């Protein structure tokens, strides 16, 4: 078997696994909502005394009266065609509800991811290379504080200091136009990424230190290979595996962690939409968002697995030998 065929096989297996995972999760997501407290039909009635036929009419209208498996099947059928149903809270298609909020969430997550990658990986590397120095100790202190700072505390501090007090940044809204949007997203992105940056710093630093301690690194250094080269070719490259894995998973989980900062900065996004939809028992929207996030996780996971061999050729060899 050539390496190329093996690789293609691996990719195919991976894709099949992804599909299976998504199918299983779709079922879990769909059924888990029936365990949630409250009946969406009585929620739709709100504070009224329903007439005899009224509850039945609502149940029929929204398909609440169908057997469970049939409802799941209808839902799945729709999802496969890109139809996530209709939000009974927003009186429009779920896809347009989500689509109107997705771009701002993606921008927020994207900018945060960039910050996490640059500051998290950057300070982790610096810390590891200058282990024990005053810089390293200060960085570690910052990391401890950062990891412990909940996003809402960060959001409140940033907002009142840089937003209200100094007036450097807007405190509400999404902005319009590319530059204005960026201006609006910076504070929320900082608030969102503080904790994650701290985590990535820690992971990066310890992964780098692990690699630095390895025999082949010491051998290379003792042979007189320039330190810079050794660090780039042996230490960083090998450490990158866990760093990429952790960073990618953190970032893909961020889509649902945005609710707090979105609320604090009056932004609209998928995170706050999810919270609102759960609050109001808008099942269709909750299902779609959860599925979306799971899909993001699955895809990122798969990408990380596919990228690993490129970072570290030893893994490709191990893969084809399996």
């Amino acid at each position, binding site marked *: 078997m050539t390496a190329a065929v093996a690789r293609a096989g691996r990719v195919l297996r991976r894709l099949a696994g992804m599909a299976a995972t998504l199918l299983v999760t779709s079922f879990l997501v769909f059924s888990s909502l029936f365990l949630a407290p409250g009946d969406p039909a009585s929620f739709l009635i709100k504070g009224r*005394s329903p007439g005899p036929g009224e509850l039945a009419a609502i149940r029929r209208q929204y398909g609440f009266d169908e057997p469970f498996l049939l409802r799941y099947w209808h839902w799945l059928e729709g999802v496969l065609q890109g139809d996530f149903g209709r939000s009974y809270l927003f009186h429009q298609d779920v896809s347009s509800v989500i689509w109107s909020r997705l771009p701002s969430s993606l921008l927020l997550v994207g900018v945060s991811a960039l910050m996490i990658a640059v500051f998290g990986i950057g300070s982790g590397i610096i810390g590891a290379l200058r282990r024990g120095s005053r810089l390293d100790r200060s960085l570690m202190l910052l990391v401890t504080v950062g990891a412990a700072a909940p996003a809402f505390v960060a959001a409140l501090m940033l907002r009142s200091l840089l937003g209200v007090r100094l007036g450097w940044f807007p405190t509400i809204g999404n902005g319009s136009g590319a530059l204005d949007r960026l201006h609006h997203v910076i504070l929320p992105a900082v608030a969102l990424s503080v904790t994650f940056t701290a985590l990535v710093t820690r992971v990066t630093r310890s992964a780098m230190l692990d690699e630095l301690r390895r025999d082949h690194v010491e051998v290379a250094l003792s042979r007189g290979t320039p330190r810079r080269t050794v660090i780039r070719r042996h230490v960083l490259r090998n450490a990158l595996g866990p760093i990429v894995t952790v960073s990618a998973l953190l970032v893909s*989980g961020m889509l*649902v962690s945005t609710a707090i900062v979105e*609320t604090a900065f009056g932004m609209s996004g998928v995170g706050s939409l999810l919270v609102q939809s759960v609050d*109001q028992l808008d099942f269709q929207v909750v299902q779609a968002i959860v599925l979306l996030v799971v899909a993001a996780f699955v895809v990122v996971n798969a990408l990380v697995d596919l990228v690993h061999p490129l970072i570290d050729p030893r893994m490709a060899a191990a893969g084809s030998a399996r």
Partner: protein
Amino acid sequence: MSTARPGSPAHRSDGTTHPTRGRVTRVRHAVAAALAAAAVLVASGCSGTAHPAEDKPAAYRLTDKTPAAARNVDSFTWSTYAEPTTIDYAYSFDFPPNQILANVCESLLRWNPDLTTSPNLAASFANPTPTTWVYQIRPGVSFHDGTALTADDVVASLRRNLDPATASVWANQYKNVKSIDKTGAMEVTVTLTTPDSTFNQYLAAGPGTVESAATLAKSGKDYGNPQTGVNCTGPFSFGSWTSGQSLTLKRFDGYWNPQLKAKSGEVKFVFLADATTRVNAFQSGEVDGGWMVPPNAYAQLGSTQAGTLYFGRNTTVADEVVANLKGPLGDPRVRQALLMAIDRKGIVKAGAGGVGEVADSLVTDNLWAGAPAATRDALLKDLPKYPYDPAKAKALAAEAGVNGQKVVIATSPLDSQTTIITQAVAQAATAIGLKPQIDSLSSEKYTTLFTDPAAREGIDLFLTFWYTSITDPLDMYASLQTGAFSNYGGWSNPAFDKAVDRAVGAYDPAEHAAANAEAQRTALKELPWLPLYTQPVSVFMGKRITGVQPSIAYLYHPWAAEIGAKG
């Protein structure tokens, strides 16, 4: 009859509500499938950030009208604590949609800021028989798309509330309606199955909204959503709606009523869920104003250079709902004792920033405006009163045989006000020998207390802020009738039910008021709900704008039309 707010945390009258806020999930290693659960859980974790109320009670007075606008303004920005889910009047039953819609869509009658009712899209109306109401439609009114208002539009709009498939939130106000028909080119007749003294009054609120029949037919299920909007007759027309962010209204140049022609070219509503975010935005001038200022910001906004804080007429009462009459609270003496042991003055001071009054009934005094002045005082005089008296309360509870029984008080960690009230009620329960247990629910679960009987199981007490959308105590008391949806504790008293029925059927003001007063007396003797305090409507306006009339009528009155530039 439950136009009164369910008063769930999601629809609180004080606006200090936050949706449940998720906690950051720190995902180190995550299995994809596990995230499905995590994503749902994220929404049930929550955190409230509220500052303790100021110690010093702020002096307050009610304002009928803020200084009139000196001239027009191009636009202003207004904040709401949540985004409307739709602006279809059939589903508009909450502060955010109603305060927007009030400027866009008009009703047959109008609820004025002084809580009176006057003709609007119906130029006049008559009541030839007790079960017939005839409305003459105002000529010369056009919809935002330029078409003229006719009786067909009125018939189509009102009939939606009768259709079970629409599931209008106003169906209950239409429960005594037999038919709605066009009886002339500009005349509509509503026939009732039984005399109903509130039906006509409700036509000044959401139930009387008129939309173009052609637009209703054309938009279908999408009517009122961000893509389609609405097409009504108000001083502002629907402009644009960016989901999750803002909704913009534009001045309607073809508006029929010169008195309420909009002074602003545009109003932009921004949705700011977080109370602190809203207060910050007022301070920084990013937002020009908003209704429902959080009580813990009264002091701050009362003294800021950024604008002025006003208080106005309200119909809201904060009540502790007795949700379980099978437990220790089943004995009316225990409910009376509990109310006597609650330090309501202390709650107003600590929880509402000193802005409010202890409530001596389940409705505000101004709802009795329709009663003849002479009878009004007499009606209210013999109300049972429950002044703060822990010693007497304890004795009364002992007489009822309460000893160490558990009562569960549901709450949600939303804001300081809710927390303070809950603590005070728990303290009172302890004082009369009960064993209070505070059950803190996520706001999601708390909301379901108002809609789902199953969610109320095991809960004895919960808090609500309940307003009425007509100037009539019946709006409140009818919702406590046997079997009414909002009669959460399943309270039943035949004499009370009869009094309410009598009030519903009585068109004569004196007779109506007398029946209402009797219902009120019974309710206050029995206390199916415990009235705590009343709070005025609050509104903040930045230094650029002025002109609004602060009043609960902002939910149905085109208040934004009066806002213009300061002199």
